[in-house]
């Protein structure tokens, strides 16, 4: 009886390991990106010597979690909503400013005049699966912003966590 149960549990472990291995094979790039690729700040070629440790320019926006967003907000970070103006009006994270990716050519010049290049900025949009925050982050890095983060959980995660939101729908 005990041997039989042991065998069943062993087979269950093999089943789960096989399923997990298959999933990893199918999604290895996504997992690698999450663990290394997009999480590792990369320095542009040619800037390897003079850069101080604290202000390393990022080649990609750094993904951050909800509690890190809250901490950065208290330390003077700027939250940027990458969604359309309509969605921003309907509801957004309290304290965020709108910089819609759809109108980026129009709004970016004014934004770059008003916001210092060395200020920490955090972009967000409609949560996981929404690429606008990442694309906007890339655009800000190209414009010269040195510390760009992306909050992938975005507005849905913030709102669902019961944190302060603003807008017409609130």
């Amino acid at each position, binding site marked *: 009886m005990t041997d039989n149960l042991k065998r*069943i*549990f062993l*087979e*269950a472990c*093999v*089943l*789960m390991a*096989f*399923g*997990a291995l*298959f*999933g*990893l094979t*199918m*999604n290895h790039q*996504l*997992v690698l*990106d*999450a*663990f290394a690729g997009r*999480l590792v700040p990369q320095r542009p070629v040619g800037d390897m010597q003079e850069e101080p440790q604290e202000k390393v320019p990022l080649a990609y926006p750094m*993904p*951050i*979690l*909800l509690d890190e967003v809250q901490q950065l907000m208290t330390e003077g970070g700027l939250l940027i909503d990458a969604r359309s103006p309509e969605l921003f009006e309907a509801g957004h994270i309290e304290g965020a400013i709108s910089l819609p990716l759809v109108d980026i050519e129009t709004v970016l010049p004014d934004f770059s005049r008003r916001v210092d290049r060395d200020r920490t900025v955090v972009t967000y949009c409609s*949560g*996981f*699966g929404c690429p606008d925050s990442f694309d906007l982050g890339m655009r800000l890095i190209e414009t010269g912003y040195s510390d760009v983060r992306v909050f*992938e*959980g975005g507005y*849905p*995660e913030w709102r*669902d*966590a*019961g944190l302060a939101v603003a807008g017409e729908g609130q």
Partner: protein
Amino acid sequence: MSRAEGLFYHLCRLTLALVFVYAGAVKIQDVVAFAGHVAAYQILPYAMNYLVAATLPYVEFLAGVLLLLNVRVRPALVAIGGMTLVFMAALVSVLLRGLDIDCGCFDPAGGEDVSAGVALLRDVGLMALVALTWFMRSRLTTRSAKCETRGEEALKAR
């Protein structure tokens, strides 16, 4: 096992199989969106959400397929029961922290939101179904073993 008991066993097994094949298949379609649902639980660090989203649906799908084929039923039930217990623990933690999130149990890309409370009740039902299927399967195999023993004894008696 009577005919009615046999039918009941297959009904339980097939219900569980279809639930898990469907749950796995829809999540496999959109792993990134599922990672978002996992992240909404606020339990794991950033990258681990992707690891779970990349692997869990395949385990669900595989376990469901084994049940569907009536192959390695008890190992599949252990896997499904174990996963359901983990889901229940996560949902209880969500309820205790007062988070208002969609459970992400099935279609991560859309569909109706299911609250943690409703999902927890559903998981209790699934656990009951797992226990029933295990019990019925055990009865089935015990009866078969007894029949074989009796058959052998009858042959020896001749």
